[in-house]
């Protein structure tokens, strides 16, 4: 099964989604480095406060975190839908157990989404160490960035071990990329149009973004993934809401996949 799925993934689609991510991160690096090259590093800037996920003075992070579902689901999320339409799945069903097939497709979707987001973010984070000195962020020097408890998860860890905090933030974001990819894989069983099925999780995030304006949680904590996945989010965050939304969305997508297996594949 694993060997088959390795052959099945289209290599060109991986390149497309990696190209979007690396282009966005390259634009962000260029834009934030130009003033430092011009005037020198007067304000003691370090990689920890300049990289893609924490930069508040730039437009690119908004676009990047809104497009995470699209980038995660391009590589391997819609191959289940394509195989179901072409009838290749019926051929596979004779040789391998159906539970194994659905699990394999789900895991490939997850790993494809996880890896694309992980590679783009970690290249952006590590390439900043080539240009800027490794200075620990300080609460008084970097006061203008407003990295406080209300908008950052585990803010104590950020000032103590900024590298560990950055790596944990990257891991959370890439796990969410995997969840979005599984969600696309599950929703694609229920949607007729192939192109809309690929974009279903992106549309889902837009719907959550619009709902966040009407139904506000206590302390105005945001439940949009594009907001709380950033290391320092533009709105308020809460650790309980982050964990709750993560579990809720992953359970919903797994349920949709299992119900879709019973209703749409076996009938």
């Amino acid at each position, binding site marked *: 099964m694993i060997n088959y799925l390795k052959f099945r993934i289209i290599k060109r689609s991986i390149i*497309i989604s990696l190209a979007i991510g690396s282009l966005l991160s390259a634009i962000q690096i260029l834009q934030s480095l130009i003033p430092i090259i011009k005037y020198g590093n007067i304000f003691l800037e370090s990689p920890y406060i300049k990289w893609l996920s924490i930069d508040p003075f730039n*437009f690119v992070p908004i676009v990047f975190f809104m497009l995470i579902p699209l980038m995660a689901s391009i590589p391997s999320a819609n191959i289940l839908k394509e195989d179901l339409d072409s009838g290749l799945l019926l051929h596979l069903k004779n040789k391998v157990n159906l539970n194994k097939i659905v699990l394999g497709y789900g895991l490939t979707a997850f790993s494809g989404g996880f890896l694309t987001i992980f590679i783009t973010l970690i290249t952006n984070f590590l390439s900043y160490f080539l240009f800027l000195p490794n200075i620990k962020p300080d609460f008084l020097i970097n006061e203008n960035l407003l990295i406080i408890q209300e908008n950052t998860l585990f803010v104590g860890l950020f000032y103590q071990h900024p590298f560990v905090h950055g790596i944990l933030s990257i891991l959370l974001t890439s796990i969410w990329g995997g969840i979005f990819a599984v969600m696309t894989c599950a929703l694609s069983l229920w949607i007729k149009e192939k*192109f809309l099925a690929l974009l279903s999780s992106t*549309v889902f995030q837009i719907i959550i*973004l*619009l*709902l966040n*304006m*009407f139904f506000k949680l206590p302390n105005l904590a945001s439940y949009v993934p594009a907001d709380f996945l950033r290391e320092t989010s533009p709105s308020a965050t809460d650790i309980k809401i982050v964990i709750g939304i993560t579990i809720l969305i992953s359970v919903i997508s797994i349920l949709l996949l299992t119900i879709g297996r019973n209703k749409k594949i076996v009938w």
Partner: protein
Amino acid sequence: MFGKILKQQITLISYRNSVILFSIIAIIVGVSPFQDLEILKSSEDLSTLLSKIFNSFILCFGLIFISLIVSLNTNGYRSNDLLLTKTRIGITTSIIIRITLIQLIVWVPWAIASLATITLTGFGFFIIFTKFQILILYLYAFFVIILLSLIELNILMITNSKILALIIAMAINFFEYYLLKVNIDSLLYYFTTPKSLLGILIRFMIILVLIILLIFSLNKTILKKDF
């Protein structure tokens, strides 16, 4: 031929249930400034009012993003139509009719919902009788959407890849939004922060000329395309 194509496109669109979802999202985008307008009731400053009605962030990621997805969602023509009509202009007209119809389904709910929220919060008299130029801005938004979806379809006809067409059209959209944020006059988002009525009219003419040029180039690519 025009009437027959119109009838065909209406029947094709009526079988697509996903359009209903997108029109509901457009209604939510239109209703979204409700809470901000409640606060603004006392003041009558036009620029702050406009920035609340046409919130550029929600328009960029809500309305225009949705309309870009809708215009690529279905194929506008069947290959049998080539043999039946024996002309390739028929395909161009069917694509243009489909775009205008399907964007009207997104745009009309948005405009109605947005105007309804304005009247509910008590600005209706103020806008319709004293500052009726605002109604032009709604039309401006419609032509912006048509322009972006025509660019998208031109790229689709050249490259045959829907993902690439969506990405390039989105990149143009985000670049214009970036220009708005750094206070440079952008073409597509001028209606969110208009400075003069003459500026709106000039940009309106530019957009209309661009739409006509894009229709000609679409026709040229379809004439030379290998179906």
